[in-house]
């Protein structure tokens, strides 16, 4: 078993006819991901890389009732719409790649998804991959390999970097989830950790954090309380970032006295987590931990 998605997952791509949507549909297909349909309003009836395109999710799901995951490449202005559309046709995992979605909109659809029992990954995230099985996201597939390490991360490129290092060290991955870099995201570290805790294939977990917010502190608390029992290695980006400056995206800013690098590392180490100073140390720490 792996987490949330596997080789049988059937995917709908929302915003499939756009530049990024079309490009990554091709990459996902060549990775082996089962993409059964795409949706772009007004483009119904066309095809993208042999994938049939529909005007609405309702039509897509009627034609492909076995679809269970959607991935969204829709521009920020229309992305929330696409999320609600996916939830309302019963999609249970929605991966939101789009960045720059207004945070009030994210707030609203994340709350709505929770009530409907839908898992949102993102927004502003690289997606989810179960190496060798399926890739529902924009990560470079060759950086990953099948194995028994789980990854959860707030950063896209850093995830690839770490997976690549693990892969080169012979440590494959069960699933890697990029939870997204926005201040408000769907699935959080602790929610993802519950899934990894239950997954028998996952033997160890890598947490890739970032300054800002308190997801890392909450993860540490969960470990300390004994609710996550597998070995964990962490890395937190932004050790040398000056406080108060917004580093790239809104998630990575130290505000209101929370989210500083030192606080996160202290909390993680207190919970017994090994914290790497640079990402490339992670494979060795994992090997020592398992």
């Amino acid at each position, binding site marked *: 078993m792996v987490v949330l998605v596997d080789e049988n997952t059937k995917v709908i791509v929302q915003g499939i006819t756009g530049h990024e949507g079309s490009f*990554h549909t091709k990459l996902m297909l060549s990775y082996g991901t089962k993409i059964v349909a795409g949706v772009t309003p007004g483009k119904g009836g066309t095809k993208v890389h042999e994938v049939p395109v529909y005007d609405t999710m309702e039509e897509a799901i009627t034609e492909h009732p076995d679809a269970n995951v959607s991935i969204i490449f829709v521009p920020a202005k229309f992305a929330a719409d696409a999320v609600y559309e996916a939830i309302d046709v019963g999609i249970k995992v929605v991966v939101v790649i789009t960045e720059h979605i207004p945070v009030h909109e994210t707030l609203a659809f994340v*709350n709505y998804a929770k009530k409907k029992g839908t898992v949102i990954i993102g927004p502003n995230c690289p997606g989810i991959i179960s190496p060798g099985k399926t890739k529902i996201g924009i*990560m470079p597939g060759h950086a990953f390999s099948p194995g028994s390490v789980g990854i959860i991360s707030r950063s*896209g490129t*850093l995830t*690839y970097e770490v997976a690549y290092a693990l892969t080169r060290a012979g440590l494959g991955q069960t699933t890697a989830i990029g939870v997204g870099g926005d201040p408000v995201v769907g699935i959080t570290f602790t929610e993802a950790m519950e899934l990894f805790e239950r997954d028998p294939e996952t033997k160890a977990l890598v947490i890739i954090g970032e300054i800002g917010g*308190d997801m890392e502190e909450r993860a540490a608390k969960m470990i300390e309380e004994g609710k996550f029992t597998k070995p964990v290695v962490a890395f937190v980006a932004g050790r040398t970032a000056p406080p108060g400056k917004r580093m790239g995206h809104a998630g990575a800013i130290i505000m209101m006295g929370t989210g500083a690098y030192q606080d996160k590392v202290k909390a993680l180490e207190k919970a017994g987590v090994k914290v790497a100073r*640079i990402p490339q140390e992670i494979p060795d720490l994992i090997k020592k931990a398992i």
Partner: protein
Amino acid sequence: MKLFEFEAKNLLKKYGVEVPPSVLIAKGDDPKKKIEEAGLEPPLVVKSQVLVAGRGKAGGIKKANSIDEAIKLVDELFEKPIKGLKPSYLLIEKAIEHEAELYAAIIIDRSERKPLVLASKYGGMDIEEIAKEKPESIVRLHIDPQVGLRGYHARIVGKKIGLKGKVLRSFSNFLSALYKVFMDYDGDLAESNPLALVGDKVLPLDARLIVDDNALYKHSDLGERKLEETGEYTEWEIKARSQGLTFVELDGDTGIISNGAGLTMTTMDLVYEFGGEPSNFLDLGGGADAELVKRAVRFLFEFPKAKKIFINIFGGITRCDEVAKGLVQALKELGGMKKPIVVRLAGTNDEEGRKILKEYGIEAYTDAIEAAKAVVKLQV
């Protein structure tokens, strides 16, 4: 986007909140005429409209006991830089006698994914200071966005900061309006500090609103904010922004170009780790094309602090061949490598990228550590 005090107060007024009588003075206005037209009587307060925190302590708020004094203060404050920034506007307000200064704000609690009301009976200082000095005085209440901030939420908060009777009703009306502004304008923060207690009502002596940049397209009525006015950006950061680059100025000599906030920060961390010092953070973001890379490289060539450049790319949505193309184009157009460059490429289309660079004569690294060590070693 941060709003000026007078803008935030105008919005609150639009939502039915009573604010102190005031008049806005632009540079070149006749303050005497403006004050008279507005019917303002001394005592008055003249307030520098700048967006930096700690304006009062920095001398940006002055009291005037006569109109003449206020006019003098206008001249003085227009010329007085507050943390490096001279104001374009001054707000002249009726000085309000008050019994107490409260704190009230609404922010988004990212963990709970809900709007969060913060209030304290000890206003007049920063929330960080309150949190340090009177942590027990801070009342917190999460709002279910489906229900909204209702009268009873405001009353629960009001009672906990010691309000009663008619003041409680006034506070409730104020907080409801603050919440509406926060929600309608996609607020990251809506705050009044101090919120004055005046007889049986509350009156916002100061007001702040920060609007989510991603939502600005919905709020064209707010107009635009020149980066120069914000006090948040250095000259080079403003220049970078005008070119669409996500750039933060730092103090070292190693220019950083990377993709993704996490990787860019980590690239900084790596350079530090091996003894170097970054001159900047420059994040190409997701899906950078050749054009953006070209702009970034050209920018760091011009940016004097960067003596050498470290380009660290791990391709996901960004394609390494596009990065390589952009770099090569930039070098061709700018007449070669004006500053030494170390490149590391991995991920999507990295082989193609490496090939393009090799044709131009650049050997790109695959391993980030080797690359970081190499850039640190470079003598410039």
